[in-house]
């Protein structure tokens, strides 16, 4: 049986689960003169969590309502009197070299980036999670085959796969999303498999089996809920990774279509202008991407600490 590296399982021989340690506790305990407080088990969620959540909510709201927001131009609108102009009263984020309003593209691009990020990750986690779950639960030849397929996919240059799919189907938002989702499957499957292995041999699972519960019931009622929690935390970081990956595809000409605003293609457009006095074209979408990614990560971190998901999963 092939033995792929399994960071999550093998390293996790000593279980570090079922603790709810808020951030800071560990280091407090370790710090030379700390520890007098003792762990506070039910601390409130930190402020950074709420700031991040509010920012994300705003981004999502903008993505949904972009078409009705008064300050957002249509994709077609351009201002021939302001080409590659810096931020001003008329154009808060400045304009592109075609005279398009950068703020409008950033707001509308949120829709693309979030769609790609959320749906690609959902896709990757659904199929990857299912594969990993089944492989980790049943073990045996089933596991062998799935693990081999996962390894083959990981050994295949992701770029080739992405370019091939996008050129074959033509670049559309759907195709780009599905492509990035497919690329996420093997990695997710591996994480899910590791997490499943960890739980599949636990007492409560074995107990359920002995009591005569069906495999289906055990998987979905006993194992899945435990696997979903760590996966959910990881998925938030995955959203970030996928959103950055979309910009890479845009750079290679395999991004979303030309008339679909996206942060990736806006950054590509602005890249050549960074040193031409029009850095804003690139920097505003970069900032939007960073803040979104950072917020997702903050929320992911907080949740991870809550549920103490841990090791080796990123």
């Amino acid at each position: 049986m092939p033995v792929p590296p399994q960071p999550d399982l093998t390293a996790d021989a000593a279980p570090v689960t079922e603790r709810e340690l808020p951030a800071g506790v560990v280091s407090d305990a370790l710090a030379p003169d700390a520890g007098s407080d003792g762990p506070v088990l039910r601390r409130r969620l930190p402020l950074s969590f709420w700031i991040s959540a509010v920012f994300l909510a705003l981004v999502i709201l903008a993505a949904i309502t972009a078409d009705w927001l008064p300050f957002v131009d249509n994709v077609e609108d351009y201002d021939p009197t302001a080409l590659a102009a810096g931020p001003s009263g008329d154009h808060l984020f400045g304009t592109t070299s075609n005279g398009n309003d950068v703020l409008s593209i950033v707001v509308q691009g949120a829709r693309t980036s979030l769609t790609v990020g959320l749906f690609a990750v959902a896709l990757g986690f659904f199929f990857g999670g299912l594969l990993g779950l089944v492989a980790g639960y049943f073990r045996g030849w089933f596991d062998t085959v799935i693990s081999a397929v996962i390894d083959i996919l990981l050994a295949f240059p992701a770029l080739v796969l992405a370019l091939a799919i996008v050129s074959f189907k033509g670049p559309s938002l759907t195709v780009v999303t599905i492509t990035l989702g497919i690329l996420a499957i093997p990695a997710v499957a591996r994480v899910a498999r590791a997490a499943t292995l960890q739980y599949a041999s636990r007492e409560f699972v074995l107990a359920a089996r002995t009591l005569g519960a069906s495999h289906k019931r055990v998987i979905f009622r006993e194992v899945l809920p435990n696997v979903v929690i760590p996966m959910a935390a990881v998925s938030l970081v995955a959203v970030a990774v996928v959103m950055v990956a979309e910009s890479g595809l845009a750079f290679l000409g395999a991004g979303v279509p030309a008339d679909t605003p996206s942060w990736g293609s806006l950054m590509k457009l602005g890249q050549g202008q960074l040193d031409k006095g029009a850095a804003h074209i690139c920097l505003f979408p970069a900032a939007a991407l960073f803040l979104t990614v950072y917020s997702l990560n903050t929320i992911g971190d907080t949740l991870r600490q809550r549920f103490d998901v841990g090791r080796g999963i990123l």
Partner: protein
Amino acid sequence: MDTRNDNQMPVGEIVSQGRLVGALPDPAILSRRRFLGTGAALGVGAVALVACGDDDDGGSATGGETTTGTGASEPATTGGDTGPTVAATNPTGAAAVTTEATVAPQPDPIPGGRLIYGLEGENSQGFNPTTARFGLAGIMIGRAIFDPLMLPDDTGKNQPFLAESVVPNADFTEWTITLRPGITFHDGSPLVSAAIKANLDAHLASFLTRQALLPVASVDIVDDLTTSVKMNTPWSVFDSLLSGQFSFVAAPSMLADTENGGANPVGTGPFIFKEWQLDSHLIATKNPNYWREGLPYLEEIEFRPIIDIATRTAALRAGDIDLYHTNNPGEIVEFRDDDNFQVAESDAYAETNYVMLNTAKAPFDDVTVRQALAYASNVEEFNTIRNKGIVAASNGPFSPGQLGFLEDNGYPQFDLDKAEELLAGRDISFTLASVPDTFNVENNNLLKAQWERAGFSVELATFEQAALINNALVGDFEAYYFRLYGGLDPDNYYHFLIGANAGEIGAIALNFGRWKNAEWDDLMTRGRATGDRAERKEIYEEANRVHAREVPNVYFFYTRWAIIAKNDVADLVKYELPDGGFNLPLEIGRHQVSQLWVNPDA
């Protein structure tokens, strides 16, 4: 994106990097350029306009006279009479340009040194001129390693270069190429007519280049230095092809090595091929036995493809490279104002940027829809926004300088009301596509916005190049942003635009847009059969009007090419022809390198 620059085909060509176009350079800007002082540089602007403004200039020359190459060229420096003509036909200041040309002495060239030349793309098919597609990058490298049979003088006429003469018979059914004596290839073998025959025969057998040489019936050796090329139909402008890819004379030993020949080019040129690493560099060293006394000046030249435009610019500024070529208006404008660099520009005989329409299917099988699209295109705004206003609007496949070019050929000028009138409330929707690089994508975004104002519904799409060509070949498209190759003579793209090459949709056709027009076909066919310049001029002007009326494509601008160099690169574009006179610099972006030298005092 486009890693390698395969997109520059000999004739029909896809716009892939930033492509721009242009009219005459602003004289105020030109006057600051030191290289302009030599005079030859100015041929560019002057020539482009002379041909369109002066009916008599050179018009009486027969094919034989124009190509014997003994003093037929007239450097722009002495062209006192052309100046006023130019100025009269074009107010952009060509006269000032010609005047400027007469000043500024250059110091004597100092041999030695090494230059690194940045190229906009890689010539990834190798360097066998009979089997590889040469992009502009390939033409530049080709001119360093091979020699062309002919080179255009500064009036745009091809003059003998490697050949001593290229002469047609009276009815243009036979051309005689006579070589200069005593020239050897880099492998030591002599340049004789057998080599010419080997090259031309290889072209005639090549699926890549054969089509452009269709009228050629046979190639025969007359004596050691004389080759006879017989035509099956009269072809008066065979020589106009002999400064491009068809003209490079490769050593027979290289042609014979079908496996390694393409990666190890052997020619008679000023530089000897040393090494080539794909996507990285090509190095060539000085040919000590070069047949042109004193040339080249450089000990070594390195060509480096740098595909990312921003990186290419930075590489020049950082000193990684010494000079590069570009057609990106942003870069040209940026360096025009920079005293640390020199810029040579030209749009002579340049490629036309246009949107190719598929006239074999709806909606563009309807001429009124095509006309409406042309009326809906605000070309001036397009060129201001996309091209920094440094290019000239184009009105058809004929570029300034070429026979047949007309300032006013009747092509629709921007008029939204007319566009709406022609559409008559019809709901026309179509997809505009291109290769996915930023420059094209932004072009298309702007066009979509313009056209939708007139009531069209436009979808945008991008395809990588192989897919785009494939779709174009079989007619599976509605509108593509394309670039038509320029040429010294309108006949050079004959086979890309005639009805005989417009196949059914689904079958391969070289006339991608599948436009068929009997009048056009007849004119284009007559144009290649006669050698009378005045008659040809009339024929092509009529063809131009037909084209403008039928609007098979929508036109935007002529590509403007520039060489941007550090100040110590001397004689950037001044290149004297072997029989006197100067080479037309940067025709269709092509650049000579053997005259370059490094001036430590600059």
